[in-house]
């Protein structure tokens, strides 16, 4: 075989190893390999390189996936609360389906088209918004706040701007109202405003017995960047400290929270919950183990002292073995 044909065959090695060559291409590669020792060695090197590439793949951490799922869950709840659901129930969707032929009622199309023309004529007659008048005053549009999300040049010299728009609306209701609760829980996760998060947490705290509120508070306890908000969350979870998932979250706070005040609070709550739940003194080994671990790694003398006292109060060793 000439050098050229070896080179041509080597070009196909990657696709050959992926099993993506056509029958004829694969046949040409294999018949060349039968008679060329150099190419057989080169193929092995290619195989090694492709295997080495396998090792650079990143596998997202389970905690990252969990966090994505939690965020998505709340976004979906918000979507539902704001009226966006997968299923089409609205007259507008049914109407547009009619126009696009999905509804299967051919005779409705001309009627729909006529209605659109009438709507267009009517809207066109409304004054265009200038200054403080126009569509806003006419009540057709509500005042909205906009933020430019992306700006991109388009091919024809124009520009494309993607705006995020928010409209202000006042909603009122009791905490028992699911929509109000969803909005409050959404505010409790607003990444831009810790003050809003703290106020929202304070409002939902009395409803911490409800599973949706409790789950949201646990999420906040473990993820909120602001220790003031986390402390408020902990107040809300105080009556639930005996529940396994709350206790697990408090144990995590004990070992991972950067704020000594949070760690101290977690120690107090866990100690109290252990004492209440275990009159027979069969304490939760996980909690005890976490406290013992904290004793080894805690740099804050006050927290270490509180932890020591807590372990002694449940007659547990302050050492790990």
């Amino acid at each position, binding site marked *: 075989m000439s050098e050229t044909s070896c080179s041509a065959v080597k070009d196909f090695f990657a696709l050959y190893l992926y099993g993506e060559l056509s029958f004829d291409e694969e046949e040409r590669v294999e018949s060349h390999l039968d008679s060329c020792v150099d190419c057989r060695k080169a193929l092995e090197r290619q195989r090694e390189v492709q295997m*080495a590439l396998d090792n650079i*793949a990143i596998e997202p951490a389970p905690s990252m996936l969990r966090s*994505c*799922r939690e965020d998505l869950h709340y976004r979906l709840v918000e979507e539902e609360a704001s009226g966006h659901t*997968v*299923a089409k129930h609205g007259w507008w969707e049914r109407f547009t389906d009619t126009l696009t032929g999905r509804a299967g009622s051919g005779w409705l199309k001309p009627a729909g088209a006529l209605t659109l023309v009438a709507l267009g004529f009517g809207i066109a007659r409304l004054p265009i918004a200038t200054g403080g008048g126009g569509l806003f005053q006419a009540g057709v549009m509500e005042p909205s706040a906009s933020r430019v999300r992306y700006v991109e040049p388009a091919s024809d010299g124009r520009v494309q701007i993607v705006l995020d728009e928010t409209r202000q609306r006042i909603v009122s209701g009791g905490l028992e109202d699911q929509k109000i609760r969803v909005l409050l829980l959404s505010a409790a996760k607003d990444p831009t405003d810790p003050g809003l998060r703290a106020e929202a947490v304070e409002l939902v705290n009395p409803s911490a017995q409800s599973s949706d509120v409790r789950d949201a508070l646990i999420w906040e306890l473990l993820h909120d960047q602001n220790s003031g908000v986390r402390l408020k969350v902990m107040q809300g979870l105080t009556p639930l400290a005996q529940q396994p998932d709350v206790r697990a979250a408090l144990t995590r706070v004990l070992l991972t929270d950067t704020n000594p005040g949070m760690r101290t609070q977690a120690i107090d709550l866990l100690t109290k919950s252990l004492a209440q739940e275990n009159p027979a003194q069969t304490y939760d080994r996980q909690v005890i183990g976490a406290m013992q671990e904290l004793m080894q790694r805690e740099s804050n003398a006050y927290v270490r002292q509180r932890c020591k006292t807590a372990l002694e109060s449940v007659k547990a060793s302050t050492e790990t073995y």
Partner: protein
Amino acid sequence: MAQKTGGQLDETALIRAAQGGDRAAFEQLVRAYDQSVLRLAMNLLRSPEDAQDVYQEAFLRVYRNLDKFRFDCSFHTWLYRIVTNLCLDHMRKRKVRKEEPTVVATAEGPLDRMDAVVEERVDGDPQRFLFSGELRKRVKQVLSELTPRERMVFELRHYQGLRLRRIGEILGTTEEAAKNCLFRATQKMRAALGDFI
């Protein structure tokens, strides 16, 4: 590649339930695919923040448009069309950069994905070690030089294990065009890694 939690019938039932407004069914559907979606976004974009953005945006788009899914293709293909478009948008916006960072912040701490190219099988052999170190540098360079489409096809074929036919369906092109794209990507890699092959 995403693993389905049940058979095709189960998935169809889940999709239909989700189309009917069952959010729990939708979230179950998400869980069947979201790990591979996050992995794809993370590997292509090398930024946890961007990968999480793509994850949220992709599944929200799926949620909002699920009523338009007519079973003309598999749900996996439909979902990946959305995900790959979002990733390509991100990659194209970044293409002005000379070189993409290879150090990424993962939940376990900073990770240079290229460090992992050093094979465990070097067994202390200095020559093999040099081989692996040099290979790492070259791979880093060549991956940054692929076009977004080449990079996408390479990631889908090599790391997600998808066949070219499926990749063509996802990217809205033919199997042949996807093959040409992969061929170009592997040629660039071969040129950069010539001494090793």
